[in-house]
């Protein structure tokens, strides 16, 4: 169990004003936040690296705040594909084991095992620069796993990868990380990662903790518009109704002719279409509703004419009031 106490990610508040959070072993906690929200600082604080963040770190009821980073049982994977360029893949993966003083035969067995789990067993003799970006990041992840640390920090590890690679690695990562009884902290700015990887979710905003909990609970009951916006793809639709302010998720807005809405209590809106985007399985229709910018997310390829006014509806129960 990893606990952080009195954390201030911007290093600007007086002591005692910071937040606390507990990360459980065997669970993946996705830390979601925009750029500059302090995600990386949180990782660096836990790892004991130089950062502006302040706070105390406890691992399994022992304070490790003062401990040298090398002596903490923590490993980290970075955004950039960081490997030792002059070592082969096998030597890269084996490097933390060597540092731990594990002898060669045992080391090789473990390297082979980890490499196979990450499907890089065929590249063990190559150098990092001879690999593709996806493979390089696999090596970095393998090295982090090899250390068998009690805490594994992954700081937006997939952000620099092609989208198809990302998809494949995401699925593998989840199984791999669940198999170990490690505290896994995975930072991201993509709300999709919260659901696809996270057992737990921690929302950060401006260096502060916004909300935490199971992804679906945070999704259903966000504490405020910012928390809702962080977990919205691509953003939330704000609305005013009888002096109340609320918001709708893009996937909760439907075209008015949607049959499934019949007989349920709905709110109707007029949307002026300004843009349509699609990736095949979903379409994003951007538009204006009463002066506010809205997006609706719908199945399949939908292309209403730009500039046209369409009637849209939302279930009353889906509106989140603040």
């Amino acid at each position, binding site marked *: 169990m990893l606990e952080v106490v009195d954390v201030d990610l911007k290093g600007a508040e007086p002591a005692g004003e910071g937040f606390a959070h507990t990360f459980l072993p065997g669970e993946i906690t996705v830390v979601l936040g925009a750029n500059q929200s302090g995600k990386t600082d949180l990782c660096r*604080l836990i790892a*004991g690296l130089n950062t502006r*963040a302040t*706070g105390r770190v406890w691992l399994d009821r022992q304070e490790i705040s003062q401990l*040298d980073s090398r002596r903490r049982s923590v490993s980290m994977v970075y955004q950039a594909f*960081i490997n030792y360029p002059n070592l082969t893949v096998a030597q890269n993966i084996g490097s933390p084991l060597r540092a731990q003083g594990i002898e060669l035969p045992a080391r090789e067995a473990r390297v082979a095992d980890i490499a196979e789990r990450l499907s890089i067993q065929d590249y063990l003799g190559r150098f990092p620069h001879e690999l593709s970006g996806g493979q390089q990041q696999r090596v970095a992840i393998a090295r982090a796993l090899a250390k068998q640390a009690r805490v594994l920090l992954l700081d937006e590890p997939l952000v620099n990868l092609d989208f198809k690679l990302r998809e494949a690695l995401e699925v593998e990562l989840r199984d791999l990380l669940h198999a170990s009884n490690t505290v896994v902290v995975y930072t991201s700015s993509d709300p999709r990662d919260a659901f696809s990887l996270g057992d737990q979710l921690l929302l950060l905003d401006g260096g502060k903790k916004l909300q935490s909990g199971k992804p679906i609970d945070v999704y259903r009951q966000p504490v405020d518009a910012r928390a809702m916006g962080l977990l919205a793809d691509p953003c939330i639709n704000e609305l005013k109704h009888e002096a109340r302010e609320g918001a709708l998720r893009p996937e909760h807005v439907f075209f008015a002719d949607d049959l499934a809405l019949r007989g349920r209590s709905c709110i109707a809106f007029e949307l002026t279409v300004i843009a349509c985007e699609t990736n095949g399985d979903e379409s994003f229709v951007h538009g204006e509703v009463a002066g506010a910018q809205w997006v609706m997310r719908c199945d399949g390829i939908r292309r209403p004419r730009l500039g046209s006014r369409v009637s849209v509806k939302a279930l009353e129960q889906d509106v989140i009031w603040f």
Partner: protein
Amino acid sequence: MLPLLTNKRWLKVTAFKPHNNRAWLGVLPVFLIVGFSAVIPLMTVVNYSVQDILDFNSRFFVGFQWYRDTLNDARFVDAFIRQIGFSATVLAVEIPLGIAVAKGISKTSRMTPIVLVLLALPLLIPWNVVGTIWLMFARPDIGLLGVLINAAGFSYNYTADPLHAWLTLVAMDVWHWTSLVALLSFAGLTSIPAPYYQAAELDGARAWQVFRYVELPRLRGVLVIAVLLRLMDSFMIYTEPFVLTGGGPGNSTTFLTQYLATMAVGQFDLGPAAAFSVLYFLFILLFCWLFYTMVMRNDER
């Protein structure tokens, strides 16, 4: 894979305190080195420049007397003007020539590394050897250059004609230092991403427009460094003219350093020489500062 720096204990502490002054300790060695290498010797000179020291026990405070004397010294003013003329001339030749040479080097050829090494050769030759090379090279009686010029019908003798002496000095400096500008510019040119050239070509830009709008703006940084280096260096030039012309004929190639050396080493006028040195130092500082702020202000605009 942790960065080395983070292993230091004092850096660790910063993680828990917003403000920590221990980092200053890290810069202390630099202050000490700079103190020993620059500030202390400089203060010695300043000390000499405001006193008249006859021997260890008899010294008189003279205030700014030496400074006034130096500034009113006609030979100082002449040397100063000559110095500015020299620096301006070599800069005016070396910068454009250096860029031109850099543009002439192919970026992709297999010969490029060899060309670069050849270019760097003059930079590796000791100053006084450069002087000696040119001393012989330009001699009108036996030097290759001198003989050739005379054979071409021009009467050339750098030991007798002040203009010839000047031209020879400039030629020597250009020969010695243009490579530096060329190497810096070449590094600047190779760092320009290919799409910039491609875009300019598709826009229909001609060669000089590519130079003016793509290359020159991106060479700014290295050119500022090149100009600063050459300005300081040429302003302090001593060995080569000393070997080549000895300041002559007459005083026509006597630059500031040379005059200073005569004063301090030849006549042992330590007070005036010290004042001279301080003024000299301030002038170089002033020029560099002027140039730098000019460039930076231009940048702001």
